């Protein structure tokens, strides 16, 4: 693979709470290309979210190496890693995790403010992003006043507003009905095509997986196989 945006070799991660020792990742090797949409699938407890957390720098590794855009992420200090996330990464979570006390536009502009964008410009970009996800009339609503789908759109807007290189999504459609899930995934694909951003999604949903460029299947902390979803779609 040429110029992979994500390059992972021999990543292991073990959780040990004194009583129980769980080997969540057992030597993961992986490469993801720039602009690729990758779906990570597998049964509960197979290590999907751990992989996402380790790759995005939210969690530490026990061993192995992770290169993001050629940078050895885990060699950075916590502050530098955090700054890197703010500038180059976006996150979408299953439960949206919007700040309930801020309006949609304020939630969306947070990453911009963190990366040092001026307030006025941040507000403008956040509004543009919300328009792009179809929420131009919900900008000043707080999350409690939005539906689940609308909240996830805000989350996506927040994840993409600072033009990140990679967007990490953990069960982005887990809390949504089928129709809304499709809408969200269409949105993700549209934005991916428009901005050439890499999407790495953890999902249980085969429908969502089918919409990705590649599906990585995991079981018991290892990657079982990695398929081109177009091929899978073709097989179907």
């Amino acid at each position, binding site marked *: 693979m040429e110029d992979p945006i994500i390059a992972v070799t021999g990543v292991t991660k073990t959780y040990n709470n004194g009583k129980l020792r769980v080997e969540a990742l057992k030597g993961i090797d992986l490469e993801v290309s720039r602009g690729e949409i990758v779906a990570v699938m597998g049964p*509960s*407890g197979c290590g999907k*979210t*751990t992989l996402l*957390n380790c790759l*995005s720098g*939210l*969690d530490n590794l026990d061993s192995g190496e992770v290169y993001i855009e050629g940078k050895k992420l885990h060699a950075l200090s*916590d*502050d530098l890693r*955090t*700054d890197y*996330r*703010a*500038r180059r990464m*976006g*996150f979408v*979570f*299953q*439960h949206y*995790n919007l*700040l*309930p*006390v*801020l309006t949609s536009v*304020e939630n969306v502009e*947070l*990453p911009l*403010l*963190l*990366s*040092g964008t*001026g*307030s*006025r410009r941040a507000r403008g970009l956040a509004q543009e992003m919300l328009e792009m996800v179809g929420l131009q009339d919900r900008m000043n609503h707080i999350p*409690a006043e939005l539906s689940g789908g609308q909240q996830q759109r805000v989350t996506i807007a*927040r994840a993409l507003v600072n033009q990140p290189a990679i967007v990490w999504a*953990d069960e982005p459609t887990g809390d949504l009905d089928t129709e809304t899930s499709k809408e969200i995934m269409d949105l993700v694909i549209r934005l991916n095509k428009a901005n050439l951003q890499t999407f790495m999604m953890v999902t249980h949903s085969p429908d969502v997986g089918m919409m990705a460029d590649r599906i990585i299947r995991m079981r018991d902390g290892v990657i079982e196989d990695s398929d081109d979803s177009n091929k899978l779609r073709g097989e179907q």
Partner: protein
Amino acid sequence: MEEIFGIEIKTLMLVLLGVFIAIMATIILMAIRNPVLLKLGLRNIPRRPAQTALIVIGSMLSAVIISAAFGTGDSIHYSIRSAAIEGLGNIDEVITLSAGSESFGSPVPPYFPVTRFQRLKNEVEYIDNIDGLMPQILEIGGVTNPQNALFSGKTNVVGISPSHMDGFSDFLLANQRKVFLTDLVAGEIFINQALSEELDAVAGNSLTLFVDESPVEFIIRATIQDGGLAGIDPTIVMPLTATQLLYQESGNINAIAVSNRGDATKGAEGSQETIRELSMLFADPIVANELHLLLNIESIRNVITNKLNEKSTDTELQKDLRNLIDELKKPEVSSELIRIVSGENVMGEIGKDLNTLNLFEEERRLEVLLRDLSDMNVDGVKKRILDIANEVGSTVTTFFIVMGLFSVMVGSLLLFLIFVMLAAARRTEMGIFRAIGAQRTHLIQIFVFEGTAYNLIAAAVGTVFGFLLTFGIVLAADQIFGSGDDEFSLRYHVELSSAVVAYCLAMVITFATLGFSAYRVSRMNIIEAVRDLPESGNSDESQTLSVNLIMIWYSLVRPATYFYRSGRHVINTRFVNGFFNLCGFLLWVIVFPIWVLDILLSTLRLMWPFFKQGWLTFVFGTILMLLGVLTWSQVAPFSIGFSLMIIGLGLVLRHICQYVPQVTPIFGILITTVGISLTVYSINEHELLSGVIGSTVFLIGIFMTWPAIRYRANPPFQLVDRLAFSFIGILGLVFWITPFDIAEPITGELEAEIEMFFISGVSMVAAAVWTIMHNADLLLGMVSIVSNKIGRLRPVILIAVAYPLSAKFRTGLTLAMFSLVVFTLVVMSILGEAFGSALADSDEVTGHWDIEGNIASTHGSMDISHAISELDLIAESEFEAIGSYVRSPVEMKQANVENQRWERFVLQAADYGFLRNTEHNVRIIANGYGTTEDNVWSALIQDPNLAVIGAAAVSGDGGPGGHRPGFKIEGFSYNDKSMDPIDIQVLDPSSNKEWTYTIIGILNNGNDSENVLVTSKTKIENIFGFTIPSTTYRFRMVDGIDLDRTTKNLESAFIRNGMETVNLQERVRNAAAQGRAFNRLFTAFMGLGLIVGIAALGVISLRAVVERRQQIGMLRAIGYRKRMIQWGFLIESSFVALLGIIIGLILGGVTSYNIIASIREGFDGIEFSVPVIQLSIIVALAYIFSILTTLLAASQASEIAPSDALRYE
């Protein structure tokens, strides 16, 4: 201490103990019936030890404050009581000659033949209550110790008969060995320890006592212990016969000490009875007969009968009145009749009623006869001091409790907050519990069980801590006040009854908070709770009107229901259930208030919807306000009523706006109108504060009107709510912060007690917080605009402000706590500074005199100027002015005012030097007597019929005389700008002489002539026919003279006259310093509440870490550094703390300004000034500690690993 709030401590203890036992019994019964609920409640305690500790600390505070207040009162009561008992020993009463004595202002009682004592001795044989009578001579003189030249200006000289020591304690040496007066040979004396220490004199030394300025040498035989017949002030004790010879009063004495049966403590208990018995013996039978006839006049008998039938008449008085009626029916004067009429209380009440019924002639005759009834005065000196001890102890406790109410309130709010947050944490599990069939009462019970467990420990620990705090307060107060008087020291003492009252009171307050919190917690919506959705305000409690009506009926018959159920269970052999229901029946019937409370709560539940609509609140408020003005003349009900009217009006208008949206602008229009009215008032009255408030309110009104007009066709409901609630908050705030006297032209003068400070403080803080929290989004917008300029800090500030403003209830509660505490501290500091500064102006206080010399001038007057010219130690040129006066208690009443009775006051007869040179300020000068102080004092010199009177004789707004007993001028206020001359009558009770004066001026408040009538000596000397010697000399020194040195030199120079001197400037400075020190001590006591406010921020922060765990994970994921999370928490706490500090500072400042403005008229020299350093310390401490408390939570939050926080599985 025996009483508090007018209630006997024992009664209070029994009532509180009863309530406490009833509550505990109910809880125990509930626990027995529902052991599962008990287990569910108690299992939460060990789950989170840190949280449990925090709850216990929060609950402790009420107990700490209450027990500290009671402990301090107890200690003061005990200290005064001990000083009285130890000082007086077995002396319970002192008999002196009262009538017919030709002396004026003499500090020494007049002499009478010793035969009066012998007669009395025979007569009291049959009085069981008396076990000792001691004939005495009490004199005062100057004493020097020739060995070391030390001197004591005013030393008591006591002559005692060695043969009448029965009933009195023997004299003891320091080693407890007894010594006897019979051991003394001629020229020998005993001195007490106080004199021994003052003169550094011991047994064997010689002392010089000056009698009529002539030196007499004595040898000290021994130093005896202070107290009893030896006194506690510097005293010489010698045999009566030697004293009679010394003062050339052979065959005479001037006092008889009486010892009641029992020891020094028990003796005082029979004092009332002894006074009555002795008064009976001293009664003149002819006068008694005339009294018998007078009291038998029909009009007076009617007065007695009516008094007897009055409901307010106490049992003791009723008994006397009943006996009086019986005795008056007898043809002859009986001893019982004399006993009754000798009692001041009975005759005082009858005199008052005669006055009320305009029977002035009868009243005057009664007064004259009562005055002539006896020529001897019996002073129950020990009982009097013990009563003072009780009164002072009770006042101090009341003061501490009322001021501590702020902290108690804040403590209760914290407890409430903690339980609300606990409920939020357990919401889902409680929802599930409700879903599977638990009733709301079950949830209440779980919380009550848990709370009771905390409470039992917290109240006990708090009571102990409170009494430890008392120790600190007593120690500090003793340091502050003890320096000036070595004889009296504060001692730590706590009564068991106070401990019980403090514990039970704290428990009851916490139970009430707990009950309310638990009730609120139980009103949850099951679905919202189970799904952890935001609260919509729709609880699952939906009772109809008819159900509520049935509930009232049910509460009325609840005991009967319990009784019926009990019987039914017993019949069905379910004895346990039968027993419980019987207990319920007994509880409701025996502890009657529970039944009443039950009915009231049921009624309130029925009425609550109508209160919420506003109209019933308005009606209730109107009734309360009218009662406050028309019936009770009290500020508290008026103010609370008016506030309820504002709330009611706001709610009614809100209700109307929902149906007729076009009227929405009414809120803004009304606010604007109030603003304009206040501004106009301020312009007319030249009153700055009202102007500032008025113009601000005007602008707010305009700001509120504009959106209402814009959306008048269809205003969003949020806008109506915002306008309605802002209307309530703003008008409420305006009402409480505008100067107090603004409504007086309409309401008239209303009475306000100290509790108004608490009510107004709580009300204005509540109104301010209410307004802010209902406009939180505006504040957030402002912060957002400001933070735009701060760049990278903006995302931190944004969330730090957004979180507290979104949790309105929680933040509002914390803000209220913090504001309330800062408010009280600010008010205390500003008032303390203002009073301290006003009282520290020694020239204003003393009339610009520097030194005061008091002498025991009982034998002739002294030419002080001549005496000074002959002094070696001080040059005559060092004196700028010298004046003197004598003060004597008199009775006074206003001439030409029919309904006035004789009231006590003090007459100060001054010499030319004093009247010419004093610089006491005259506040109001009577028409026709000039315009300057000089005019007034010159008039007094020229016309001996003229006088000026101290401010204590004048009532009025902020006038000092309002709450003091004694003579008052009627029809005149201290705030009046002018006056006509006022004629008064003066009666000297010793000689029964009566004369008149014309008052031509009122002296300023706050000076040392506040309680006296000042006139020249000339008229009194003419009336009495002899020169009246001065007992007080005042000296003004030229600038640059060392006052301390001159003060000592003067005392030394006039030791022959028994002069005791004091540096007046230093005394004023010391008094002001003591005042300031006590204010700081008290501020520190009030600052206890600050701990709670700070703890509240800590609780909220810790809770926030748990609640926002996922959100913190998300923030870390999208790029918030650890430090930014930490800063977010710190800024959030800072925001609440600073907002609370700002509210407290503004409201405290405005309140202090209002208080000072309202009393400035009556308290010259008092000015509003801000003690910047003290306030800075308070603000800094409050802020720094709130940040320190939040640090732990902030650190915990920043350490949350994003991957852990975001994990769902």
